[in-house]
């Protein structure tokens, strides 16, 4: 749509066996430039975002430039998943910070920021004129149905990972019912769920009960 195609940062500088990660040897400005363009590409091409960006990052920063190790990537994902916010920005800040400190975090974030900002501004201006057109409405119905299916598949996949015991099932079910069928704020559901997790850890009696109910309830 707009001409924000990132010039691929493909300077083939992969000297084989470059010593373990030493991003400091690369001039700061060059590191910042690479961070900006790589994350701009990730943001521009990751539809829906999420963990799909991991292979790209590991190619750019681990195998190609040796600025990070695979362990660094795994650590970053673990931390990122425990933080609120958008996955792409969290990842940009973490990786950017590791490679070039605070300027690196800012450069990578700017890269994530720019494509959606430009593209949506262009589209938003057009979009309001398009709605109401029956053909456009039909297309959007199709996309909404697709999103419904995609989210359902995501939920099933996540559920397989997360629902390990009675506690998880109860929390997930209650949050679902509250959110889908009552006007309670989603933020309160998150806060209460976090507190319930803390309570489970602090109160041993609850933990005992958890294992018991976990054994009893199917």
């Amino acid at each position: 749509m707009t001409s924000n195609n990132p010039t691929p940062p493909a300077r083939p500088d992969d000297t084989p066996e470059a010593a373990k990660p030493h991003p400091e040897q690369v001039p700061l400005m060059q590191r910042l430039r690479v961070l900006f363009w790589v994350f701009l590409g990730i943001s521009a091409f990751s539809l829906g975002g999420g963990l799909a960006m991991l292979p790209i990052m590991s190619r750019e920063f681990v195998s190609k430039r040796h600025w990070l190790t695979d362990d660094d990537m795994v650590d970053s994902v673990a931390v990122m998943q425990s933080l609120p916010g958008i996955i792409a920005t969290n990842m940009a800040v973490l990786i950017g910070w590791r490679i070039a400190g605070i300027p690196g975090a800012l450069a990578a974030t700017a890269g994530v920021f720019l494509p959606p900002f430009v593209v949506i501004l262009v589209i938003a201006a057009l979009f309001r004129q398009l709605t109401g057109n029956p053909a456009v409405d039909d297309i959007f119905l199709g996309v909404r149905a697709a999103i419904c299916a995609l989210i359902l598949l995501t939920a099933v996949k996540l559920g397989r990972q997360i629902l390990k015991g009675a506690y998880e099932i109860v929390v997930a079910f209650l949050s679902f019912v509250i959110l889908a069928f009552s006007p309670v704020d989603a933020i309160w559901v998150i806060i209460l769920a976090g507190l319930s997790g803390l309570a489970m850890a602090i109160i041993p009696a609850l933990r005992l009960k958890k294992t018991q109910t976990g054994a009893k309830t199917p």
Partner: protein
Amino acid sequence: MKQLLNLYFLFFKISLFTFGGGYAMVPLFQSELVTKHQFLSLDAFANMVALAQMTPGPIGMNSATYIGYDQAGVLGAFLATLGVVTPSLVLTMAAAAGINRWKNSPALKAALSGIRPAVLGLIAAAVIFFAEASVFETPLCFLWQKSQNFCLCWQGIVIFAAVIAVELTIKPNLIITVAGAGALGWLLGLV
């Protein structure tokens, strides 16, 4: 000015409570933007998310830019998007500075053990929301409010089933799936 600040803090707040990104954000957006502030109707909201899904970039940032622009022009779009980014920037840098302590904090682990299943509930609620906006033509609560007619939208059902089938078998690129669903919607609309 006040409106711009409000936009910034609104999206700051939504981002601060989004764990797991992407679809988990949909119910948060819905309670803040549709229910509380009434920036847009449910239908317009569903279309906005569809648009955010179809365009490049993370859904959360796309939605923030869109709503910001809708409410207060380019500056509004900028501040709303900045609001989404700020918690990431601050918290992630703080966490990166103490990466090991953060990773192993028992309190954090405990809180997250509760938040993770709740996020699953959030995502499941987003399924219902989108089902109401595509497969069913009415909100599901009308099922037990007998006063309303309950209808199914057959085009929505066909596309929903097609996407599930395609995703479970061929697993094409997401762009192709979404574009195909849009095209199918248009074709079925002609019938």
